[in-house]
């Protein structure tokens, strides 16, 4: 049980907080100490809006043990509107609805439970853009 790691990553998993390079403006997610573009260490936190489009996806049938109760489930690569790509599970969607290029938005969901007595891990997943699914 790696409690410090859960705690350390809370701003990434709940807020999708990455980094912006103060010198060149480059955006990173995950946050990096060194800007991959200009190598500066002069960076500030940057929260991504959590909207993007689907770059690729797969259905995981053979899952690691801790994800067993959810398998099969979808994992995708999402191109955020800020120009950064992230990996996340896809939720509230069926295989038939999944399509490369579809618009997605971030939601906070349960990722897994760490055993019957362990904590529940929450974090970002992506779902089809709400306004598109339900006409308001």
């Amino acid at each position, binding site marked *: 049980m790696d409690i410090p*790691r859960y705690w350390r*990553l809370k701003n*990434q998993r709940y807020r999708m907080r990455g980094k912006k390079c103060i010198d060149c403006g480059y955006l990173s997610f*995950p946050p990096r100490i060194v800007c*991959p573009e200009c190598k500066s260490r002069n960076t500030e936190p940057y929260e991504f809006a959590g909207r993007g489009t689907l*770059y*690729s*996806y*797969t*259905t*995981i*049938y*053979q*899952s*690691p*043990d*801790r*994800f067993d109760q*959810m398998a099969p*489930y979808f*994992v*995708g*690569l999402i191109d955020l509107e800020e120009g950064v*790509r*992230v*990996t*996340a*599970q896809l939720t509230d969607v069926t295989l038939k609805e999944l399509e*490369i290029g579809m618009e997605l938005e971030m939601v906070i969901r349960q*990722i*897994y439970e760490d055993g019957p007595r362990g904590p529940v*891990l929450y*974090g970002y997943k992506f779902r089809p853009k709400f306004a598109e699914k339900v006409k308001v």
Partner: protein
Amino acid sequence: MRKVAIVGVGQTPVREHWESSLRDLAVTALRDAMDDAGTDTVDGVCVGNMLSGALSEQEHLGSLIVDYAGLDGVEGMKIEAACGSGAAAIRMAVKAVASGLMDTVGVVGVEKLTEFSGKYSTAALATAADADYETTMGLTFVGINALLMRRYMHEYKADKNDFSIFPVNAHQNAVHNPDAMFRYPITENQYINSKFIADPINLMDSSPIADGAAAVIVCAMENVSQFKGHPAAILACEVGTDTIALDNRKNPLWLRGVERSVKKAYYVSGLGPKDIDFFEVHDAFSIITALSLEASGFADKGKALQFASETGIGIKGGLPLTTCGGLKGRGHPVGATGVYQVVEAAKQIRGEVSEKIQVEKNNIAMAQNIGGSGATVITTILKKV
């Protein structure tokens, strides 16, 4: 820098070796390679391994293997670069010998993946990816490759069934390799009908987890006459790297790690893709074979499948691939795989493989070992002496 050569090779069959321990496998392969070279000592041992800590509860492999191989007092260390650990260990040996720091180095790649259930090993293998941002999302190693394959099919309008050319060829060659895990052919139909592991990747796209060890003895070219093993010159053994996470790459379908590694290998050897007689490609998944052929300069972007069918990848083809079965047919004991590839390439050059899989043009061999989804890539070029 001194020129270097391989003067000894050894390997255990790739199997579910329930009767043999990690150390037994490693020592057997290493001692076989030393016997082949005709030497009973080396200056150092480089051990390629990925998961001994996770799956055998054993680290400190350098000392363990040196001890049990009867090499008391010799320097030994483990080198880890995920599935690229084997060739990474060869790279370290080449650096030591080329620089003159050591004269003779034993390299052994060893892996034991069948101690626990397949699911447990799957989770351990996923540690090759970014633990905080890929694996914690429930992404498996197969899943990462599935994301690549789906995008490849989308961008290049590739037909899933056309990928069958790679596993069908690998299995065909494995039939004639007594050390291969799957010594039976498969058909295109079997490929099409096999079950998904992470779609679009099915069982026949995926190399199997396995146990095994392979070893080579690396020495200075100027000293080859001191050994009895027939030498093969190492013209290049070069590393290229890329971001650990797939999502951090601008174009995931272009393996920059492969490109960087082959560019260096071509540069130091003075060769190009047209000079390569056969290629031991890292066919962990069919999609990786395709991406490797493109980034290595054999096929144009998006044209790997067309290249494979037009050029021919069989033993008598224009560019024979995975001549002893590859990762798919021989099996993929991850940290040992890179050494198996080089052992097989050296045996082809020596003319020591079964007649049915002996390539006719065996002057220049290339082997490419890929760690993770392409974050560490080692390309080795061997030449007949």
